């Protein structure tokens, strides 16, 4: 049974991020898509075109909300207006789960609008888990947290990123949005084995997976969501679903956005892996690389 309590026991298949350049195509052509992921903050408004488009999408498709500014790892208290608007939107979309990032981004009331890495300390575990619990109680849907790409590590950290993730989700009793591209990007930037990360994640908590492209620079990799997914990330994806089972999967493409068809085609490459996993006997474990990478 791949679906779990963190994604509302739903089988969602492969989704695409709902982006403005594709609005017209989607509303006119009504393409077959399992579900759309919407950036919550873009629709936490009082009226106008964003909500009108969202309502039309909701008539035709299932929608899952993904947030970018809850900042579970920020020490400062949660923003009440943000929470209230989020809850209003949750009721509108009926999202089966709600995701946001395992990061911080605001302090003393000032927002960086970035996904900043958290020092992996016990204090940070406490702060982050408490906030996730608070949000989960308030919005009344399962919250799932996404691992972020990072470019810096802290002297203060006393555990690995995956140990930190595991501690937080256990204490908050929340789900995980496993971004395999982010694992790959961070593994290149911080010199760890991405397979170890994927193999350390508690499978029973993974509600969703993100895949995306990135940009490689001379000394680091940047998570830009402006390219197709590269083979090593597909390999990580294959490894992840082999452990976890078929899981709701979403392709992120946020910059230099190509046509809807191209984004859809890229997302549907995941189907190849999902079908292979569906055929596998449950006894097969992650130790054996049995899935072929789609070319």
């Amino acid at each position, binding site marked *: 049974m791949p679906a779990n309590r963190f994604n509302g026991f739903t089988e969602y298949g492969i989704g695409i991020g709902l982006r403005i350049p594709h609005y017209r195509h989607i509303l006119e052509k009504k393409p077959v898509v399992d579900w759309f992921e919407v950036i919550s903050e873009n629709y936490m*408004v009082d*009226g106008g075109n964003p909500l009108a488009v969202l309502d039309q999408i909701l008539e035709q498709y299932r929608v899952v909300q993904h947030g970018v500014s809850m900042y579970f790892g920020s020490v400062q208290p949660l923003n009440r207006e943000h929470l209230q608007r989020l809850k209003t939107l949750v009721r509108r979309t009926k999202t089966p789960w709600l995701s946001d990032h395992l990061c911080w981004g605001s302090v003393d009331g*000032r927002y960086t609008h970035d996904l900043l890495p958290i020092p992996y300390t016990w204090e*940070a575990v406490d702060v982050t888990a408490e906030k996730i619990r608070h949000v989960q109680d308030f919005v009344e849907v399962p919250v799932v947290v996404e691992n972020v790409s990072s470019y810096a590590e802290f002297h203060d950290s006393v555990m690995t990123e995956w140990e930190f993730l595991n501690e937080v989700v256990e204490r908050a009793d929340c789900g995980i949005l496993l971004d395999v591209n982010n694992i790959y990007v961070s593994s290149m930037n911080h010199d760890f084995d991405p397979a170890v990360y994927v193999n350390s994640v508690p499978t029973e908590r993974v509600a969703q997976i993100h895949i995306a492209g990135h940009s490689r620079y001379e000394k680091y990799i940047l998570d830009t969501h402006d390219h197709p997914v590269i083979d090593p990330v597909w390999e990580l994806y294959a490894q992840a679903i082999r452990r976890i089972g078929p899981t709701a999967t979403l392709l992120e493409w946020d910059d230099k956005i190509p046509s809807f068809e191209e984004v859809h085609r890229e997302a549907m490459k995941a189907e190849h892996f999902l079908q292979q996993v569906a055929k596998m006997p449950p006894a097969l474990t992650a130790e054996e690389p049995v899935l072929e990478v789609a070319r």
Partner: protein
Amino acid sequence: MSSLLEVQRRMAEAVMAPLTRQEGMRQRAADGRPMAKEAAAYIKPNPRLESFERLEIYNRQYWFRVLDSLAEDFPGVQAILGAPRFRELSVRYISDCPSTSFTLRNLGGKLSGWLEEHPEFLGAQPDLVRDMVRLEWAVIEAFDAAERAPLSAEQLENAENPHLALQPHVRLLELSHPVDDLLLAVRKRKSARKLPARQLVQTGRQKTYLAVHRADYSVHYKRLEAGEFHVLQEIHRASPLSEALEQAFAGSALPETEQAQKIQQWFALWMSLGWFCQV
């Protein structure tokens, strides 16, 4: 070991500090501390990047993101001032008024007030820039403000003492230049280049009354007559309708019958646009 809050404060200060002209992180913090030492205090280096360089990635990302956001929201101001001056204005404004909202949509909300305290950024045509800032912010607000059920003609007629309110998406502007035309010209160009001086000079002073509003989910600008503007403004201020109408024709030489005709025409138009809702 430093506390989480201390690390977050130090990192936010570094990330939000303005970049150098070469778009790199500054070598020294505002208080003169060397940034290399500051970064090394809490960020580990790796074999390829110093602590400073790792922190610099976030510093650059922050500024690229907020500057892009402001430029996207104020293309008219950028076209009047030109990209370099607009960038100077943006860096200083965002340094003074960083985002305090969970959404970048609100980043430019204090720009109009901030410019009053920093007129040195207004350029050669300060009132033109002031007007454009107000118009572009009104467009942002009108785009996603609420829309209530519009009042029907019957509701308006039958109400003994109608308590009218304007739709939340209607914004009223009294401007000293016809910047609505200028903004339309800018949007048609789809380019951030400065407008030609000839076009700016042509946008001479002209008292302009505008309603920025939404129809069919698009934002529109509608020119208003002075009297029309004053009536709507009084309604917006929740003044009694009789007072609002009096205000519209204060000192007017227009015969009463023609005044009544005008009021009728105005209301018919406003009703057709669905601008009224109940309080």
